[in-house]
């Protein structure tokens, strides 16, 4: 028993040493566009409306390390929830091959669809208690715009990336990418469908780099 405990502790220490000394990190800021999208619900022909206003979502950017990286062996399932007539999160970044679930947490039907060439699908109308939760595997890189056929103001984005190294900035543009491989790479920031900025970086084992993207 002691032997296995010793092996486990050693493995943990070696693993920890690897992440401390064998991998790099980048942190910095992306300049985000000013303003934010303010959704307005079309309630014209609803028999009954509820009070309340829709939440707004500040712009964010997806920051990722571009390069020829091997694909992650085990991809986590990700979730885009439909709640209070909005997609949460409004922007999701995933690696190619990731399965995304779309649970409905509203008390009304939703009908999620995408006509984006990256992934065309239509999940049909489904209620909150739908099981199994409707899901889609995104098997091509690119941008997918999510919409709801019932609630025309709803819009969400999924950026499908060919890299396992990515993150999403906060509302002020701050980001931190960790566990990056050493070497020369290109750091990219996807800001919106018309704008992606990039910056060449050279990463060293165990070092942290500061990079601000205009």
């Amino acid at each position: 028993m002691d032997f296995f405990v010793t092996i486990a502790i050693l493995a943990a220490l070696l693993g920890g040493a690897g992440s401390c000394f064998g991998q790099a990190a980048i942190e910095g800021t992306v300049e985000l566009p000013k303003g934010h999208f303010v959704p307005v619900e079309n309630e014209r022909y609803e028999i009954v409306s509820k009070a309340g206003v829709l939440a707004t979502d500040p712009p964010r950017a997806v920051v990722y390390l571009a390069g020829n990286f091997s694909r992650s062996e085990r991809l986590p399932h990700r979730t885009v929830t439909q709640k209070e007539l909005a997609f949460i999160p409004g922007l999701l970044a995933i690696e190619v091959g990731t399965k995304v679930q779309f649970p409905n947490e509203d008390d009304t039907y939703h009908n999620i669809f995408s006509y984006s060439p990256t992934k065309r699908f239509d999940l049909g109308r489904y209620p909150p208690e739908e099981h199994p939760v409707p899901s889609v595997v995104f098997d091509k890189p690119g941008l997918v715009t999510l919409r709801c056929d019932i609630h025309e103001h709803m819009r969400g984005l999924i950026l499908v990336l060919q890299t396992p190294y990515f993150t999403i900035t906060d509302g002020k543009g701050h980001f931190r990418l960790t566990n990056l491989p050493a070497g020369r790479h290109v750091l990219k920031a996807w800001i919106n469908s018309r704008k992606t900025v990039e910056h060449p970086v050279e990463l060293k084992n165990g070092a942290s780099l500061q990079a601000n993207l205009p």
Partner: protein
Amino acid sequence: MKRAFLCACLFASALRSLSAQDFLDQLHQALTISFFDDRVRARASGLLDLEYYHYPQPAPGLIEAMGHDLFAPRLSVFVDAKIGPHVYFFAQSRVDTGFDPSDLGAEWRLDEYALRITPWDDGRFNLQLGRFPTVIGGWIQRHLSWDNPFINAPIPYDGVSLVSDRELPFTGQSFRRVPAFDKYEFLPIVWGPAYTLGASVAGRIGIFEYAAAMKNAAVSSRPEAWEEFNFHYPTYELRLGVRPNQAWNFGLSGAVGPYLLPDAHPMPAQSDRGDFYQYVLSQDVSYGRGHFQIWAEAFVSRFEVPRLGNADMFAYYIEAKYRITPQLFAALRWNQEFFVTADDPAGRPVSRAHDVLRIDGALGYRFTAYTQLKLQYSLARGDFISDNLHGTFAAQFTVRF
């Protein structure tokens, strides 16, 4: 006509490109404004419809045109505004060739404007004032071109009867078969969405829904009557609904009110237009799940016709839509309408329209989230003129922004 439609198809191809879709996404955002930390927000949106019809004479339904072809473009602009959590305003303005497709000149109208107050968060009570659609039936929620799988309306909202709100018969035989050129004098059970003026209350308590309205004109009234600011001859509308779950929706509706226009003639001596009522009872049911949706409605309507007594109608339709692929859908609708008239007070039979059977089939394709093409063929037997079988082809290209 064909050239215009070809242009529409080329337009569709152009709008299919990603950059065009991206442009419409940006436009969607650009047409939204907000103030006071987003507590007041408004959005303009719209529909551009290019419609083409090919039909035998006379033109079917509420279409008012001579010849056998009609190209009818329409631009609808909407404003939706939210003022805090409890107040909502909407308006619709249109530029087209008439509320119903016609070969007349272009006109601009303000078809809808309404203010809705929702005092409680759960939607148990809404008060709405302004000009807005009837609360009866189950078709209003999907009557706009983008939401409707068909180009025309179901027969209770589109099929013209022999009852006129202006030309009143002297005898049962003058309650006559209608020549094509004055078809516009006659009424359906419900005239499209019936954007009449008035006030409504509506709400949902648990699985139950209610909506009641007092409006300025009957549900069968023509568009010219909708904007008349006169509540001396009001129509009362009521709908009670049950929604046991998100898939099913059941409703019972009724409407009652005078239907004659101020210039209705010749009026019987010592009578007033407020003495002659339209009564409507209807039942609606809908089901939706996955890629399949089905709707059905049945209407009974009675018109009190001066000098003749009652003219009764029964109409129903069953409509189904299936989304075959994310972008392609098909729809089928079965409509029937029956007319009943008794003998006139002199004991002479009252002429009546032919009962109508109409089957509508449609295919639709969404090129993008903002562009859609629908093709429809309708095969009908019987109308207010003849009992012949006849077909109508229609195409509609829509850009949403």
